[in-house]
């Protein structure tokens, strides 16, 4: 713990942490931001004390990233109030945010890969000599100084960013942000790409910055980091701030409970278990995909008539696992088994002929041909059904598309309309229709309801449950735990590219699954992992 002083000060003043402190630098109250029907921020209130380190935590999609983008001027908010240093704050551009002293280190890198480290660090204020020409020596000197300041002196500032590892890039991004005199520094999941050693260094850097009176906002998925370096934590859920707590006064269990909420239990109880599953439809044996750092690979089984969920944090390797199974990306080692016998797929084509359909995470990039008609999208994965001797049978195609339109309640003017005329939920149903048109025995889904409104979500759940009842084996990855708990018979939990646990339906609780996902007590539960 780096700043017990502030905690003491707050306690001395006898203030609840949520209330505005006298040394408040930033106060956000009742901030709202909607994207169409999606309430990304739905009443966010919290405050930052000068010189504190403040953690923002919450499940994926809870609104942290939206908040940061709002604070950094990437996009405006709809309603609410932000007061920075006693003055109203409504940045319309990132430039304006920086001018007011708010600096963000984004999760995605904003480095110019082909330029040198020095050029990247001083990109915002290149030193010039009196002829207005770039003073390269001065630039390199400044850059080296800034790297020394964060203990990265061993990097040659003249090398191109491209030649550096991902962790170093992250630290350079931080060094760049320290170039400007900011009063608030927001770090969006800075440790996601760092190893333990670099994380430690980052924490030292943060401690240094704090010494200088800079307020640090720390967004992370790792509660142990929150408890290691932060003074206070604000918990987000469904676009709202649930609570702000002093780290000294709370526990990780408490924070998880806030993240999960209580009202979700009710939703779960009215869904029912599908019953016992049949034979094994799909297995992986020591399956290792690219990016997986572990040698041993992943083992799991999915039975006919069963819905198996995979829970885990972003970066736990869930999507990569699915892409490996369906041969979208190559497998490094290990193999997939269908009906108990090993299979080797060279392309998605082979997986499809083995009865495996894969609904990808990104329907716009990988799922749909947006400019083409709904009917064309529905038949894309099974052209044989709508053609003869290589010639299209447009009547058959229209009829088939219409039958899926009715079966899946796709709301469209006509199946001849372009797919991009549909709302997110209906687009997702078109993707589902495309794969159902291949009559798959194994259906793999990655985030099946991302960007889908509540009503369509429920319909998609119904479709998937029906499929399971008819004997299809389903494997679902979702970042929304309530979704998995509603749908699945069994949930596998992945953390850091490993299956760390398997939870049977009877034992579903969000706390239990989240704890495993966060790497706390990662014990194998159940037998079927």
């Amino acid at each position: 713990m780096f700043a017990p002083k502030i905690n003491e000060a707050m306690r001395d003043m006898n203030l609840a942490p949520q209330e505005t402190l006298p040394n408040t630098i930033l106060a956000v109250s009742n901030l709202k931001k909607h994207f169409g029907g999606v309430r990304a921020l739905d009443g966010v209130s919290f405050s930052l004390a000068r010189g504190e380190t403040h953690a923002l935590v919450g499940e994926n999609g809870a609104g942290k990233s939206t908040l940061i983008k709002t604070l950094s001027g990437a996009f405006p908010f709809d309603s609410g109030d932000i007061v920075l240093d006693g003055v109203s704050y409504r940045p319309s551009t990132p430039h304006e945010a920086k001018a007011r002293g708010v600096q963000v280190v984004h999760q995605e890198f904003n480095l110019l890969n082909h330029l040198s480290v020095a050029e990247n660090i001083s990109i915002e204020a290149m030193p010039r000599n009196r002829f207005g020409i770039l003073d390269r020596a001065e630039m390199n000197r400044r850059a080296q100084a800034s790297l020394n300041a964060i203990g990265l002196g061993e990097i040659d500032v003249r090398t191109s960013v491209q030649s550096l590892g991902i962790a170093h890039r992250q630290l350079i991004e931080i060094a760049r942000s320290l170039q400007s005199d900011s009063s608030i520094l927001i770090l969006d999941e800075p440790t996601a790409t760092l190893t333990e050693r670099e994380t430690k260094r980052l924490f030292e850097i943060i401690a240094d910055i704090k010494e200088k009176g800079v307020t640090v906002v720390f967004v992370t998925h790792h509660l142990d980091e929150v408890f290691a370096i932060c003074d206070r934590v604000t918990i987000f859920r469904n676009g709202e701030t649930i609570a702000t707590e002093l780290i000294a006064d709370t526990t990780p269990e408490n924070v998880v409970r806030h993240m999960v909420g209580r009202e979700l239990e009710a939703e779960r109880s009215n869904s029912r278990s599908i019953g016992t599953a049949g034979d094994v439809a799909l297995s992986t044996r020591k399956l290792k995909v690219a990016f997986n750092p572990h040698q041993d690979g992943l083992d799991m089984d999915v039975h006919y008539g069963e819905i198996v969920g995979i829970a885990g944090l972003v970066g736990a390797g869930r999507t990569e696992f699915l892409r490996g199974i369906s041969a979208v990306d190559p497998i490094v080692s290990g193999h997939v088994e269908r009906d108990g016998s090993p299979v080797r797929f060279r392309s998605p084509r082979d997986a499809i002929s083995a009865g495996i359909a894969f609904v990808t995470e990104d329907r716009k990039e990988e799922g749909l041909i947006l400019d083409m008609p709904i009917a064309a999208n529905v038949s894309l994965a099974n052209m044989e059904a709508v053609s003869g001797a290589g010639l299209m049978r447009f009547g058959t195609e229209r009829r088939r598309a219409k039958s899926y339109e009715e079966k899946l309640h796709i709301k469209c003017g006509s199946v001849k309309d372009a797919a991009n005329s549909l709302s997110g939920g209906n687009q997702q149903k078109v993707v589902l229709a495309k794969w159902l048109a291949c009559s798959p025995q194994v259906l793999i889904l990655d985030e099946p309801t991302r960007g889908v409104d509540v009503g369509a979500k429920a319909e998609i759940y119904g479709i998937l449950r029906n499929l399971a009842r008819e004997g299809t084996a389903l494997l679902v990855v979702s970042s929304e735990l309530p979704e998995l708990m509603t749908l699945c018979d069994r949930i596998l939990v992945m953390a850091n590219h490993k299956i760390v646990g398997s939870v049977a339906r009877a034992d579903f609780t969000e706390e239990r699954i989240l704890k495993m996902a966060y790497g706390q007590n990662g014990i194998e539960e159940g037998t079927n992992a």
Partner: protein
Amino acid sequence: MTSDNRPLEPTPRRALSFRAIINNAGIGLALLALILFFSLTSEFFLTSNNITNILTQITINLILAVGMTFVILIGGIDLSVGSVMAFAAVVAGKAITLPDMGITELVLLACLAGVMTGLICGLLNGVISAFWGLPSFIITLGMLNIARGAALHVSDAKTIYSFPSAFENFGSALIYGVPVVFLVALLITLIAWFVLNWTVFGRLLYGIGNNEEAVRLAGHQVFWLKVAAFTICGATAGIAAVIYMARLSISSPIAGIGFELNAIAAVIIGGTSLAGGRGSVIGTLLGAFIIGVLANGLILIGLNDFMRQMITGVVIIVAVILDYYRAKYSAS
């Protein structure tokens, strides 16, 4: 669900079909306006001799542009067609001037040699760019040089001539004033239209141009589809070579310089998107007509060739600007 009823509104559909009419008819209207303008400003324009002229002049560009449409539809480009045409013409010229063979055999052999030469060049373009996922712009730029060099090498940089007269007659034959070679080009256009609109292959080419990854994940062999598009483009360059020989009675290794740009211009003016996935071969037909009518008409009304070139350039730019708005409106 009530929050999800956006597509039930009737207006977007009507607007869409209205736009569709504008998109397709727009090019045709522009062509009609051009024809009207030139027939009012030049008394020679609408004479049967001049129409025959225009159709003859359009032929080669139309054939090349039809092949080019396949490549541009999948988001590629083929800069090599002009050179490949010259190479194919030289190879066919060598074949047709072989001694000691019957005329029929010679002509058949020449046609086969020309088309196969083009086809193989296209196949190479496709295989190389699709296998390594390299931009076809660069690969076909390389092929542009290779084919030109090969044409010069094979022919010793000499023009080949004295073809069988039956072959030359075919090049200048007319049916009711319509050149037979133009009818061949029209037939190729119709076949291409059929393939692109009525076959699974055509559907998948459009799909690749729009979203290659979605097509791959749906289990299709994107590699071979792309190779096929380039091969078709190469084959049309071979066909164009044979027609060129028949029409001019020579095979020149320096023929076809800059033809690729005219073909691309016809495709783009015809409303096919350079980004791929959107366009039609009927548009390409109209695009080739617009270029041909402009070239002919501008000279008839007394502008010199330099002016003609400038105006054609303006038309290309205007066509691309129109395409920008077309894309913008169809996206919203």
